[in-house]
């Protein structure tokens, strides 16, 4: 394994322990309805929502080669099936990915 790549991996892994452990230590004495916990939960959910939006409107890597309408079609189809199926995840996921493949082939 390349030395710099291996060093970066180990340092980043140690930093992840710091992030997760720091959060757990910080939360150890707080109740779930504490304002700080509620703020942290809101930030986490907002990060997740931003992650989804960025993956659709400004993706990096292999997804960047997929046309925007295909990404929107996949998201829209997945959410539509999710709503219509009473919140079933697996069919919604399958339908969304099938829509992506279909739209990518057509566009």
């Amino acid at each position, binding site marked *: 394994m390349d030395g710099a790549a291996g060093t970066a991996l180990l340092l980043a892994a140690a930093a992840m322990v710091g992030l997760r452990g720091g*959060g757990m230590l910080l939360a150890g004495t707080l109740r779930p309805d504490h304002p700080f916990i509620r703020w942290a939960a809101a930030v986490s959910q907002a990060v997740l*929502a931003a992650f989804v939006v960025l993956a659709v*409107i400004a993706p990096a890597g292999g997804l960047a080669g997929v046309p925007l309408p295909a990404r929107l079609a996949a998201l829209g189809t997945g959410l539509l099936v999710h709503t219509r199926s009473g919140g079933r995840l697996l069919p919604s996921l399958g339908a969304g990915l099938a829509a992506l493949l279909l739209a990518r082939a057509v566009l």
Partner: protein
Amino acid sequence: MRPGLLTALGAPAVAMGATFLAFGAAVREAGLPLPWALGASLLIYGMPGQLVLLQFAAGGNGAAAPAVLGAVAANARFLPMAVALTPWLGGGRWARFLALPFIAITPWAAAMQALPGLAPPARLPWFLGFALASWSLAGVATAAGHALMPLLDPALLAALLFANPLYFALLLAAGMGVPASRRAVVAGALAAPVGLLLPPAWTLLGAGLLGGTVAFLLGRRGEDGRG
């Protein structure tokens, strides 16, 4: 542990399996070996940070510090996620630290939905069952992606890469009935374009901090107005 493990083997397994399969393939494409791919998947265990690190490692520019800081920034959400999750884990003061390596988006999102509905003694076993299944799957899928990369066509790879965002979108949609969640999701989505104004490593964290803080403050203002 069994209920959590079984939950993890449904839709989360498909989403995570697809994403880690794609990551393993990308590592192989970058010319890095399987141990590096497995180390990144199992020790970092957060795809944005993994991708930042891979970008650095593939470039081979020799300086580790920017890559580590970039990965930390990309995965900095682990801190607020751990803060939010820990009170729900139950268990003893130290037993709950068994959950530490597994705090990542998929187990966190599933746990935040499931744990409040479980009796406190059942919460940590549920999380560990879910987390161990997801984590093991991540390792297996990474190895498979690394091995199968030469056989994957670009369309399939793109679909695999989209599985994770789509899965998270579905999880978020499931929580939209709760006002606090709805506020956070909408504010985070609206803040995403603002995050694009920041350096790439800070885009996600910046958008989340902005959107989450606005959502939290709006919720507090609503409570004050009623109170």
